[in-house]
């Protein structure tokens, strides 16, 4: 049943460009899709491993900058008179490097931050993101600072025998983002249902118990952070090559909050939650724009987050799933009778 719903959803999403002609809405869908990928990666840490990583936008932004700089080339001076000159490489390489570098940052943050837990972990992750933003703002030679990196090339994919295709149109980018989103979903789904996913869940549910059956906290959490960061980096790269302008504001805390609201509202710890939450908070601003100023919208979004946490803390998708789940038959307490029966048989 679940697989059927998923296939239906994919087909539905794939068919959108066939009937949607409004370029403005298409654009909104594409950026929403990119943010959904980011939200899914955040969900891996927040919902499936129980780590409130509020610096997540750092991985997204690092991915964006790495990908952009790889495909634009750069020329920077380093201490001790060193100079690094990089010639532009194809954007697709930037995409791969974005994942790798973001994943590496995830590894570092994981190692450093998991020494500190709970509230302090949250604070460290926020600090990390802000430091990255300040670096992007101030290392003007590399990043152009507030003047932004512009004219970032679109992604070019090479099809064997058919030549290269540069993905410039909205239609092409839509399908690119959709493909990456679907792959991400499958990847996370497989991960969550694997042996590793159970380790993550064990740590989230009862860490002391999990540790006593041999689950390695640091290894599990760090691995989750690496994968999560890598996916966010991929999303950032897609963003850079679609919007084609990146400035340090990509690291703004409000963008992390956006992803957090998407995940919490949709349902953390569920696979479809970030998708549902993402669709809502990605598209709502588009529809509300004529009637509400962005600041007023954000007052509402803050309010929505609070209300959801009070009223529907599980989020939309898990709450719906609970509502429509098959009612359980009340189980009788079994142990004393059944066990002695078997016991009697064994010793007979």
């Amino acid at each position, binding site marked *: 049943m679940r697989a059927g719903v998923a296939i239906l959803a994919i087909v539905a999403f794939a068919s959108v460009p066939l009937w949607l002609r409004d370029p403005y809405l298409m654009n909104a869908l594409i950026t929403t899709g990119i943010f959904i990928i980011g939200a899914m990666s955040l969900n891996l840490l927040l919902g499936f491993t129980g780590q409130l990583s509020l610096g997540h936008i750092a991985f997204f932004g690092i991915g964006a900058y790495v990908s952009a700089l790889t495909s634009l080339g750069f020329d920077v001076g380093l201490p001790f008179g060193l100079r690094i000159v990089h010639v532009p490489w194809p954007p697709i390489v930037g995409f791969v490097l974005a994942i790798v570098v973001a994943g590496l940052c995830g590894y570092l943050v994981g190692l450093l931050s998991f020494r500190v837990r709970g509230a302090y972990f949250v604070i460290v992750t926020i600090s990390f993101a802000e430091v990255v933003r300040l670096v992007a703002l101030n290392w003007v030679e590399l990043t152009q600072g507030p003047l932004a990196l512009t004219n970032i090339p679109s992604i070019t994919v090479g099809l064997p025998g058919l030549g290269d295709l540069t993905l410039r149109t909205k239609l092409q980018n839509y399908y690119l983002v959709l493909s990456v989103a679907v792959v991400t979903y499958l*990847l996370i789904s*497989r*991960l969550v249902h*694997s*042996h*590793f996913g*159970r*380790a993550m*869940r*064990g740590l989230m*549910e*009862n860490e*002391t*118990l*999990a*540790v*006593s*059956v*041999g*689950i*390695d*906290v640091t290894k599990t959490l760090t*691995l989750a952070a690496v994968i999560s960061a890598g996916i966010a980096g991929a999303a950032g790269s897609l963003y850079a090559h679609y919007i084609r302008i990146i400035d340090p504001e990509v690291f703004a805390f409000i963008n992390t909050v956006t992803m957090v609201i998407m995940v919490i509202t949709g349902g953390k710890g569920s696979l479809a939650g970030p998708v549902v939450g993402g669709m809502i908070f990605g598209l709502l601003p588009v529809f509300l724009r004529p009637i509400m100023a962005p600041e007023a919208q954000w007052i509402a979004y803050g309010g929505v987050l609070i209300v959801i946490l009070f009223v529907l803390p599980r989020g939309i998708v898990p709450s719906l799933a609970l509502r429509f789940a098959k009612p*359980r038959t009340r*189980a*009788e*307490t*079994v*142990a*004393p009778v*059944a*066990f*002695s029966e*078997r*016991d009697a048989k064994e010793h007979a």
Partner: protein
Amino acid sequence: MTAPATALSVEKVAVHFGGLVALSDMNFSVGEGEIVSLIGPNGAGKTTAFNVVTGFLDPTRGAVNYRGTALNGLKPHQIADLGLIRTFQRTSVFPNDTVYDNLLVGLHRQGRVGLLEAILGLPRARSSQRRLRERASELVEWVGLERRAYDLAGSLSYGEQRLVGVALALAAEPSMLLLDEPVSGMNASETHTFVQLVRNIRDRGVTILLVEHDMPMVMSVSDRIVVLNYGRIIAEGSPDVIRNDPAVIEAYLGQGAKRA
């Protein structure tokens, strides 16, 4: 008659919390395949001793060895990898998962496949998953909780949660099992069933150390008993010896004597 090989040895262990001496000069050992119980009045240091022996607390002095490997300084998951698995008195389950899923987590040490294999769904990963699911089903039956297998562990009664906790520990394939007040909160018939379970586990070759308050249970299940008071061992021996030991009787001020 040869004595059993030593599984766990506790040597000169002392635990100081600042100025407070929780344990002083503790020495005892548990032989392979033995069932040993650690008892003592409240405040005697049983919990502290248990936490030292299970690696959740580093002793201020002394050493704990399991089959020759020193436990000092090892992280809890490394101790689990040695085959030393413990249960917990409170929060002994993963409350928001079903009993069945609880056991799947417990089977962590059994199911290791490469991450990439798992993600790609390669045959080795899939057959490993299948084996784990079979094993989980076996364990659920073994503790008699088949009918509750798909209920959330948090919804079970206290006694049932203990059984899940033990099944969890068994899932980790221990060579030595450390039970933390396993029958506290159980009624008489549940306790009786549990004693049978413990004997079955030992018959499968698992060494057992348990901490308990329930004297009749301890007397009926143990091969040997170690008695603590004020952070020191005051007596050690078979249940008959302990039952009649004046120091033990005095420590319990007649409670043990009446109930044992």
